[in-house]
């Protein structure tokens, strides 16, 4: 199971970073989402992996899993959801306004034309 979780985190991170390096709004946002999934799983795994153990005290249970990472992941998920929504809205506004979905810095409109970017 360790191998599966570790490789899942690795693949998600690699995919996320690749998409972020595309430097266009939509792939970058997708890449950000992949990366936040990766980090959520990573946080979840940081309290050691245990199968079938509850995080809450109950009668008749002897093994527990660490509850703190689950609380951390919950907070992180909420924040990353909200942030993704914010960046989608701002990115959409920027795209509709300037008809250009590049993320990198093109401050001068004449530069955009001179480099032949669409």
């Amino acid at each position, binding site marked *: 199971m360790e191998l599966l979780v570790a490789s899942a985190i690795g693949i998600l991170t690699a995919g996320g970073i690749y998409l*972020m390096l595309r430097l266009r*709004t939509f792939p*970058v946002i997708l890449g*950000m989402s992949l*990366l*936040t999934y990766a*980090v*959520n799983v*990573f*946080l979840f*795994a*940081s*309290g*050691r992996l245990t199968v079938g153990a509850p995080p809450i005290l109950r009668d008749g249970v002897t093994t527990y899993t*660490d509850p*703190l*990472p689950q609380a*951390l992941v919950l*907070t*992180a998920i909420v*924040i*990353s959801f*909200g*942030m993704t929504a*914010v*960046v989608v809205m*701002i*990115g959409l*506004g*920027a795209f509709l*306004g*300037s008809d*250009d979905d590049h*993320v*990198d*810095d*093109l*401050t001068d409109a004449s530069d955009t034309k001179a480099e032949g970017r669409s």
Partner: protein
Amino acid sequence: MNHWIIAPVVLPALLAPFIVLAARYHIGIQRAFSLAGVLSLIGIAAGLALQVSDGSIVLYRLSDWAAPFGIILVGDRLSTLMVLLTAVLALFVLLYAVGSGWDNRGRHFHALFQFQLMGIMGAFLTGDLFNLFVFFEVLLIASYGLMIHAGGNARLRAGVQYVLFNLIGSTLFLFALGSIYAETGTLNMADLANRVAMIGPEDTVGIRVAAVLLLLVFAIKAALVPLHFWLPSSYAEAPAPVAALFAIMTKVGAYAIIRVYTMIFPPELEVTAGLHDLWLLPAALISLAIGMVGVLAAKRLDRLVAFSVIGSMGMVMVSISLFNPAGIAAALYYIVHSTLAGAALFLISDLVRTGRANLELTPQPPVAGTSLTAGFFFVGAIAMAGLPPLSGFLGKLLVLDAAYGTDLVVWIWAIVLGSSLISIVGFSRAGSILFWKAHAKDETKEVPEMTRPAALSYVAVGGLISLMALHTIFAGQVHGYTTTIAAQLFAPEPYISTVVDTPGKLSKPKEGH
């Protein structure tokens, strides 16, 4: 338990929803409440700073849960100083926003402003790394809204970059927190300090990765080279009062570095040896150089100011990365100075924009109210470049003095002094183009009537500049106080024992993880 320590977080948190819900359509009421809130924040912050100035540590446990489990707020000399600085800066920024009408050009300026203050105050006061992350997010969420306040394509495009860069930073922060938790089983800073010290020299891989990741995150916040790319266009495109408030946000990164790397990963710790002198110091020196070269190369006034902020952060980080008490004391003195100077310069560039077609550094007809604006720019540029008589010069002297006797003293002195010269050239070029060449232009041409900035705007900028003057006049006292702060930071045992040993609910932690 003293409840005042949570007031800087709770007060803006209550005011902001009130402003959104009750005073939505009344800009006058919004302004009144916002100003009243900031004024009482200054009072509270001053009270807190006074209370801890004798070296005591104020601990606040939410719901009285004991330290490693519950959420805690901790006030010591450093955090209360930063809280006070934020509150004072916020007052003048708010005065400017009201005076220039920036708060009326989009919606919810005041509510977002209060949320931003809440995040910054919380980040300074929290004693827990995960809560530091949460407060970073609070201040960032508010700053996204403020950054694109009043809209416009250029601002939205810069906003996308700003948001994405900070999201990457937040994700990295979570990775760092995950690896710290996996290594130590706690995220409470004082508890971490104890546990990191217990890690043997053979198990250092994980905690080293965590320390480097954490340093990267804080370096992003502090806009340290090579992680500074987000700053110039974000700050240049943001509305001027917002950019002025953002002057404190880079300092949040510097504060976090000071806090974490004096308490949890102190320089003498073998686990993270080499991180400060081998990596942080060169990066800081390069950002100082790049910032000041950017000042010389900038073609627009707002970008010039943004680069000068990078340069001044480089100066702060050079001083921090010496990691000796003299260096930290100098860095804190310089942090106060550069926050005030950066904010003043952003506001001045907006004063120039009010009376001018654009901020390009090309000769254009004189701006309305030139003489006063030019005077302010002159003083602000002197402060930022670090010429006598203002506090930038004293701060720079302190940094140079702290660097004297270290191994890299030649490099530090050369880069600090050389970059100062470059920035003086850059600022004087900008000033002479903006204010002197204007009169050399053909005056027979019809000059369009430009609005003069409001009197309140001048009051705000003048207030910041007079604060800088006070910072210079009372340099001895201020530096004395920052020296005691540095002494407290390098002897963190009272902090740690206050946090860990104060009893509360669950106060007997089970050992092991």
